[in-house]
């Protein structure tokens, strides 16, 4: 299982966010370049339609592959009261021929993306990962070298932490607490429905840019112009004292 919060930020403010995150996390960023292939079961396969994601880490000297399955998010009154999405996820590292295997099993390519950016991994009440990435689409099949942004000028911000059914309350609290440092700055919107919608909308990459803008508009109109500069200001403040301030 994992706890997750997602938001978006204008690319022009990403550098400021990076400095801010470095101050908050106390660790250096890691570069991120993930080729994500989303597969769906063929029409007659399975009791219900199923979806699986293959992630290829292109940042490694020899690209590594992971299969990821994301289940339905936690629902109910308890889930409604928390500002973080909790959902079951299972991952398995696999050998590089995984795409061929799933094609052989009757899965079809639904869409593919290239996420390019950076990540921070750190311990803060939970093992938290913050990923800031530009989401790109491929103009030709698997042509990661020719990828172009789905939403030019906007990047995705994801805060995640692994959890279990036993300790998710604590992990939710840790993620929420961390997000509070970012939320007032406006760089991260704690929007569960945004998270639910993004994977769906990315399946149609032509429309997703508009979808994100629309969601942004729906969630917090005017956020990108009015609040994000605050993050830049905070980052400037961090830089002025060496970036070592813990917020």
């Amino acid at each position, binding site marked *: 299982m994992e706890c997750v919060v997602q938001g978006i930020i204008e690319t022009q403010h990403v550098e400021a966010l990076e400095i801010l995150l470095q101050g908050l996390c106390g660790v250096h960023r890691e570069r991120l370049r993930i080729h994500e292939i989303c597969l769906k079961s*063929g029409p*007659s396969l*399975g009791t219900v339609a*199923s979806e699986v994601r293959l992630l290829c880490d292109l940042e490694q000297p020899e690209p590594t592959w992971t299969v990821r399955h994301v289940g339905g998010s936690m629902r109910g009154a308890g889930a409604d009261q928390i500002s973080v999405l909790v959902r079951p996820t299972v*991952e398995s590292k*696999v050998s590089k*021929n*995984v795409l061929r295997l799933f094609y052989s*099993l009757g899965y079809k390519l639904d869409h593919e993306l290239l996420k390019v950016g950076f990540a921070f991994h750190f311990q803060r009440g939970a093992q938290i990962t913050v990923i800031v990435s530009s989401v790109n689409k491929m103009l030709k099949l698997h042509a990661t070298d020719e990828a172009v942004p789905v939403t030019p000028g906007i990047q995705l911000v994801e805060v995640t932490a692994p959890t279990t059914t036993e300790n998710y309350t604590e992990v939710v609290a840790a993620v929420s607490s961390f997000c509070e440092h970012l939320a007032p700055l406006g760089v991260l919107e704690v929007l569960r429905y945004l998270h639910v919608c993004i994977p769906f909308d990315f399946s149609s990459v032509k429309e997703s840019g508009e979808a994100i803008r629309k969601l942004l508009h729906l969630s917090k109109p005017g956020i990108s112009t009015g609040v994000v500069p605050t993050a830049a200001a905070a980052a400037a403040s961090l830089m002025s004292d060496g970036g070592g301030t813990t917020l």
Partner: protein
Amino acid sequence: MPIKWVLYWQPNPGTTASSQIVNEVTQCVESMNGVKDGRWKSTLTFYKPIVRDQSQLSDFPRDFLGISLPEQPSKYFFIIRGQRLVLEADSSIQTIMEKLQSYKARVSLTFEGFQYQLGDFQLRVGKVSPTHSETLRGIVMEVEYLPISSVEKSRQVMEEFLDILQDSVSKRSLPGHFIHADSMFADYGLGDHYTSQHTAVQYAVVVAQVIASVQAGQGGRN
């Protein structure tokens, strides 16, 4: 990792594998000064597609199987023999397959027995039976030569050891013999350096032979 050959017992026509043969083979290994070194167990599962329209069953692989090996307990291997495809995965891939609800386990076979140390060789003798059943369906033997990892460089020493083993077994006048089938590693994209994927492929080959033997035995009786 060290080279390994997985052998299967080929019963003589009209005979079948039995626990008695397993005991005899075990005694044979012990008579070669094999030192018993614990138990071992592997599990192989055949998967079948869950389809909404049975007429489309032929669109999906019928020889899709998964195997867990004691040499890599945190890993799981998928094999589609017809397509010469072997995949290595963390064992959590089994959970993912369950959640996808597109394939389900049809039948599982367990390979289990004792392992022995003979100098630089490690031998594992085991019976093949359906999981949760004592019915013996076949016999396998793993021969591992610890100093060498190259498939090609080890071929001669493995063949020589196998000759010695066959001689020893034949003296007991057992109704059959061990066979090492060519697993055609190159077809699976596997190189000369031995890995657990090589072992998984060998088990896929061996289990097909064991099933063929059982079917031949049943045909003979009928």
